[in-house]
């Protein structure tokens, strides 16, 4: 027993080193992107030749890139709102009501999370073309809503799961209508969860490539546009510069989402 414990404690001392390596492996490649974006060379690689901001300055002239950015923002905002609204309603039904096939419906809603995206993309393409919708930003929005609803459902199910039903009854008991209880109590209490849903689904949609690639037609979203530019080495440094900016924005969004998620936990778990 003692020897096992001794070995374990020696292994235990190595754990910090392991953690550092792990995090390094995960994030160093991502850090290379901003590094190269300030490098004064068209070739992506070491040694670095000099510091420049011209790749960032050059971004302004890329009109096609900006229209792709606009497309992406539009798709991300609309699908975030759609997915958050539907996800909130679904979670409310799942956590508050008992109905036949409740578990099954929950599984079906969560399925897009585990289904290969490429399969979803191809099937949606076939269906959208078949029913004459074609491929537009609208179809991308539909696809992205499908993809991000599971994220919203899992966030909101946890928010509603911790929600004390007596709060709504208390509101009604104090004279509110059921609509008033929803507006004055339920929604404010789960608001941090809703904001967290909006941020997460926005981020997922904004980054998404496969569905957008299949379904965006003539109006590419940003990831699709970037992919198309990777073939031209001359434009690559611009793309790297934009990519660095996107990483920054994504990190800020995720941090904000996490903060709201924690606030929502503090709101709903202080009951004891």
């Amino acid at each position, binding site marked *: 027993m003692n020897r096992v414990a001794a070995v374990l404690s020696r292994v235990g001392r190595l754990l910090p080193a392991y953690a550092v390596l792990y995090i390094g492996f995960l994030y160093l490649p991502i850090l290379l992107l901003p590094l190269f974006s300030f490098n004064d060379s068209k070739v992506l690689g070491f040694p670095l030749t000099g510091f420049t901001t011209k790749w960032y300055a050059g971004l302004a002239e890329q009109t096609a890139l900006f229209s792709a950015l606009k497309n992406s923002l539009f798709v991300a905002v609309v699908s975030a709102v759609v997915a958050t609204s539907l996800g909130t309603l679904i979670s409310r039904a799942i956590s508050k009501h008992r109905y036949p096939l409740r578990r099954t419906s929950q599984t079906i809603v969560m399925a897009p999370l585990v289904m290969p995206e490429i399969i979803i993309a191809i099937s949606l393409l076939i269906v959208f073309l078949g029913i004459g919708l074609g491929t537009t930003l609208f179809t991308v929005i539909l696809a992205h809503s499908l993809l991000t609803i599971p994220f919203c459902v899992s966030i909101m199910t946890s928010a509603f799961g911790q929600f*004390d039903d*007596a*709060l709504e*009854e*208390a*509101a*009604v*008991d*104090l*004279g*509110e*209508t059921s609509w008033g209880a929803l507006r*004055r*109590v339920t929604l*404010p*209490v789960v*608001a941090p969860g809703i904001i967290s849903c909006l941020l997460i689904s926005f981020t997922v949609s904004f980054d998404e490539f496969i569905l957008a690639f299949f379904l965006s037609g003539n109006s590419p979203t940003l990831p699709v546009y970037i992919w198309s530019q990777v073939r031209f080495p001359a434009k690559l440094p611009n793309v790297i510069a934009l990519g660095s900016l996107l990483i920054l924005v994504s990190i800020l969004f995720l941090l904000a989402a996490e903060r709201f998620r924690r606030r929502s936990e*503090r*709101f*709903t778990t*202080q*009951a*004891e």
Partner: protein
Amino acid sequence: MDHKIAVNIANVSKSFGSFQAVRDVNLQLRQGEFFSLLGPSGCGKSTLLRMIAGFEDPSEGAIAIDGLPMEGTDANHRPTNMVFQSYAIFPHLNVEENIIFGLARSGLSRAEKREKASDMLSKVGLEGLGRRGAHELSGGQRQRVALARALVLEPKVLLLDEPMSALDKKLREQMQMELRALQRSVGITFLMVTHDQHEAMTISDRCGVMFEGRLAQVATPHELYQKPNTKQVADFIGGMNFFDGSIKANGGEKLDVELPWFGQVSVDAHGVSDGVGLPVTIGLRPERVHVGSRRPDGADVAVPARVIDRAFYGETIHYYLELEGRADPLIASVTNFERADHFEVGDPVWSGFRGGAAVALPRK
């Protein structure tokens, strides 16, 4: 005595599917009284409370509050307010906002509402805590906010659903006395649901005991304790020794009963009208059992017994006494006086009681 009726519950039943939660309950709450519904969990007391609040509709029967039938009136329009078991303090609002939540439709100005809130806060002993966030409150403070939030609307009846269950013992005892004082000062009818017989007895003017959806007895705490209507009630309210005997003579007020071990004794008839020769159950509270090393003087009947176990509670000591041939031990609760005799397990003792201290239990 003539009492104004605050709540009239007439022949109310409630079923959930095939489960009958409440069965044919008739109950009148008097204006300004503190009434407790008492019973084990699942006895239907909370369902009854929720029907009065308007969260459930009776399957049968009718409820009237302050003379007005409540059928078709939703919870938000009833002159009742509730203190929930979890207190249900709105977590996104501070104390003051919680308290004025229900005044949204009152037409009062912001200043008037705040004035009311501050009055209420001082009534429940939370002066100056209006700005406190809901998550910064202790259990006792949460209960006070829940009380203030409900009372500020001046309901005809305040409903309390197990209001003490989230508090620890010490705080619970303190809050019981405060709740009692608060009820007297506001003069509103309080209806509390609890499974804690001690709590119900301590603070209520009257209690109703429920078992399996039925109201078994409605009485003052004193009456409930001294003269339980059934064996079930007797057993639920405090400890009770039971003896099965047979009736020797029935004099209306007094009943002469032949008991095993003790012989013939005259007990409180308590409405038992059965004739001579019929079986009857007698209840005897543990603190009415005399225990001594000699034959106790004040007892009408006494027999030798043996101590088989004892439990020390501080202010009292419980002796478990074996009577020759009796399966259940006779439980005696003795006050821990300075000069009280103390007995050890195995000691031979005398046990006895006064006939007037025992009560006949009507058969159901």
